[in-house]
């Protein structure tokens, strides 16, 4: 296997994923083209050196459909010779494009690959793709799609977590994100989005609420109680009959924020670095995917992280920083508890609860955030993992070079 290096990454700021969000007027093609052209412009390499480009898109329909990556490449002014593909494995999609890049480079089929993702959740709403698991009754009666918030509440119920613990985690995510934002920890990789006249539409992550308090969060109503009562609780209790009920603990305040955004990561072999005159920033040690019980939906990161560490012969203690996607507060909380990781190593600059989770892009954003932070703190190793619907997960281990 050839070594696979991460050379660079950029991302858009994350805009609130609703009609008054700053990026609502920006089409997903423009979001994707912006990070692709921005990535190239930073070090001005020849786009003909790129062999493959993949973007994660969780709702690949409407204006995010029809292989948005190829369109975005052309819009970004890349060479016409470069093919692009879209990929969907729910929330791990962007990290999976990185994994695909690693496979191509590692096996010698490519020298340089771009991975990443794009999601305009304000324009192409979640759930609008009509998947069989949530529409075909013949599928749903055996393998139902459990709304992730309800699954998160199941996970918290099984772990015996209380609302206050989830809220405390969320407050800390906001505090860390606001601190990172204020101290410019994100700025080296953020590309401002400009309007037609060159004026910035958004220069920072818009969803952060720095002054959020426990008391604020305590006032929020459970977000998934009604869905649970509509039938999903009952379906879950059939699989977990030892529970008396599902405790609905997640709210809009301790769940990831809905946002618009995009990200791109440049990977390549050592030879590519020489050719393009770029210095590698990190080496990918392991990246793999797996799945766990589908109704629990969010339990994948732990087994998949263990497998990834085993693959590269590392232990939990060898990892300096973790990025565990904050789909819901319960995910990193259970992760820390089960994996035995200290809170000061996990999501040190906040996570999706504060900054937002543009579904198809988040995996690559987390990789970039972890890499920038390793460099800032002069640490060496990071593990990035996300859960994806129906029990799936991807984990990546990297090391600075």
């Amino acid at each position, binding site marked *: 296997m050839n070594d696979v290096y991460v050379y660079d990454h950029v991302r858009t700021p994350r805009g609130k994923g609703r009609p008054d969000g700053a990026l609502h007027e920006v089409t997903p093609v423009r979001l994707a083209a912006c990070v692709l052209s921005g990535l190239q412009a930073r070090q001005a390499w020849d786009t003909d050196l790129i062999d493959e480009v993949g973007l994660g898109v969780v709702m690949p329909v409407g204006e995010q459909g029809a292989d948005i990556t190829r369109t975005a490449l052309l819009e970004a002014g890349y060479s016409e010779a470069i093919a692009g593909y879209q990929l969907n494995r729910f929330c791990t999609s962007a990290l999976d494009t990185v994994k695909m890049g690693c496979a191509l480079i590692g096996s010698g089929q490519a020298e340089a690959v771009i991975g990443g993702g794009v999601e305009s959740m304000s324009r192409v709403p979640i759930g609008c793709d009509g*998947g069989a698991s949530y*529409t075909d*009754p013949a599928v749903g*009666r055996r393998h139902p*799609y459990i709304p992730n918030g309800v699954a998160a509440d199941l996970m918290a119920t099984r772990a015996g977590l209380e609302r206050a613990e989830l809220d405390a985690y969320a407050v800390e995510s906001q505090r860390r994100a606001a601190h990172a934002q204020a101290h410019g920890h994100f700025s080296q990789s953020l590309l401002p989005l400009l309007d037609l006249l060159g004026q910035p539409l958004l220069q920072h992550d818009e969803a952060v609420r720095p002054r959020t308090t426990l008391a604020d969060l305590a006032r929020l109503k459970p977000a998934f109680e009604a869905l649970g009562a*509509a*039938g999903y609780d009952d379906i879950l209790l*059939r699989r977990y*009959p*030892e529970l008396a009920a599902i405790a609905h603990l997640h709210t809009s305040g301790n769940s990831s924020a809905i946002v618009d955004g995009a990200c791109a990561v440049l990977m390549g072999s050592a030879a590519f670095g020489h050719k393009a005159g770029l210095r590698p920033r990190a080496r990918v040690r392991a990246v793999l995917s797996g799945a766990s019980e589908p109704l629990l939906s969010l339990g994948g990161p732990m087994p998949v992280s263990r497998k990834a560490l085993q693959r590269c012969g590392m232990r939990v203690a060898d990892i300096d920083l973790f990025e565990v996607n904050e789909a819901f507060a319960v995910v990193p909380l259970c992760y820390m508890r089960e994996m035995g990781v200290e809170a000061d190593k996990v999501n040190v600059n906040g996570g999706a609860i504060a900054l937002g989770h543009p579904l198809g892009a988040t995996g690559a954003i987390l990789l970039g955030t972890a890499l920038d932070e390793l460099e800032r703190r002069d640490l060496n190793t990071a593990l990035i993992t996300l859960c994806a619907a129906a029990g799936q997960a991807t984990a990546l281990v990297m090391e600075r070079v």
Partner: protein
Amino acid sequence: MGMEIQTWDNVRLSVDAEGVALLVLDVAERNANVFTAGFMADFCAAVDFIRARTDIRGVIITSDKPGCFSSGADHADLLQVHESGMSALDVQAILMPFARALRALEQCGRPVAAAINGDALGGGLELSLACHYRVLADNSEALIGLPEVRAGLLPGGGGTQRLPRLIGIPQALPLLLSGRCVAPQEALSLGLVHALKPLDEIVRAARHWVLANQHAAQPWDVKGYTVPGGAGAMASHALKSFGLGLARVRMETHDNEPAPLAILSCVYEGTQLPMDRALTCEARHFSALLTGHVARNRLRTLMVNAPRVLQARREGHRTDLDALLASRLSKALDDEWRAQLAEGVPPAMSRNAARQVGLARLPERDGAPAHRPGDGNLSIDDLRAAWLTAAALEAARCLEEGVVDEPAQLDVAAVLDLDFPAWTGGPLSYIDTLGLGHFIEQCERLGVRLGSRFVPSRWLRARAVEADALYAHSRKETV
């Protein structure tokens, strides 16, 4: 006015001077127009006749039974089909000619109107849905609807296909899934019928419409037709109709009832297909349901035997007996709750198992006996079986002791008075659903895992040697 009359045993057809045919439904030797085999054959023959006679300019279908247009299939007949041991493929083969006749009628190239003089239920409504126009008598207490789900079935005469194509999936599904029947005014506002008229004007109104609409076709046979509100996974209502809709059905039925699940699939799949293929899809689902146990249990206990029992109660009989049966079964379930707790079954497991088999009322008591650590090998499947078996064994004791003469008495009382899960048809039908031999094996297994209360009596074992069912007539014999 008839210048020409063609008569079959169960329908008759007259053609007037202007070429309008009046097809009168009048099933022989029945008070209502029910779908007997003879009726279905005659109706098919009448449709053939109409198709062959190109001089017929239009058709009006009405009924001679006061207050009844047609009430569809007879429940006793359906039960008999089940008990005849017919395979699902056989049922489909019986069903399809009638479905094809309705399809031929709506594609005959002449306008067809239904003059609905009273109840149009199940197959009766389905027959009228194959007409291009429906005028309903407004001065009646008529009921209009597709109640098949209550019998553990689905509308197998095109109802799951024509209703959503007519009024849209979000409007049709609640009617199909609940079996709710509506009065004329609501039938009009839902779009089930086109007009309400006084009873003595419906045929005239239908005739007027037929003469004024010589190029009638069903909306779904017109090029460019789409299901109102859309169909399939990308329809804007798909998540609500089929995602949340399925979750609700599963919550309400705990997957014990195959009919609502089949209705959801039939509507989801069929509305994305051309009508002819959709009707075949529906017939397959119907045939699978009718040959299944839940339809048998619901038909026998709720549709055929319960009316008999209720009639007896109205006449003042049996009240004491029914109260005794309910109290014995109720006590058996209370005892089971206490026994499970005493054995260390976690209360949540016990409750979830009871809910999952459909015992909605039980167990609710608190103040449970202090429980000791339980047997970790007990599965939720064992507990589900334990709940039903506890009731079934007490029911069998009632039969053994001669408290009841026949299983139906007890099953009806259990379902009506105790909300015993209808999908089982009652505790004795539950035994027959497993088969007496399998039931006794299950008792023995539970006896080992949960306690001697599940050991079957010698009488019950002896019955198992004689037959595999407690009901006298079960599959292969007729009622």
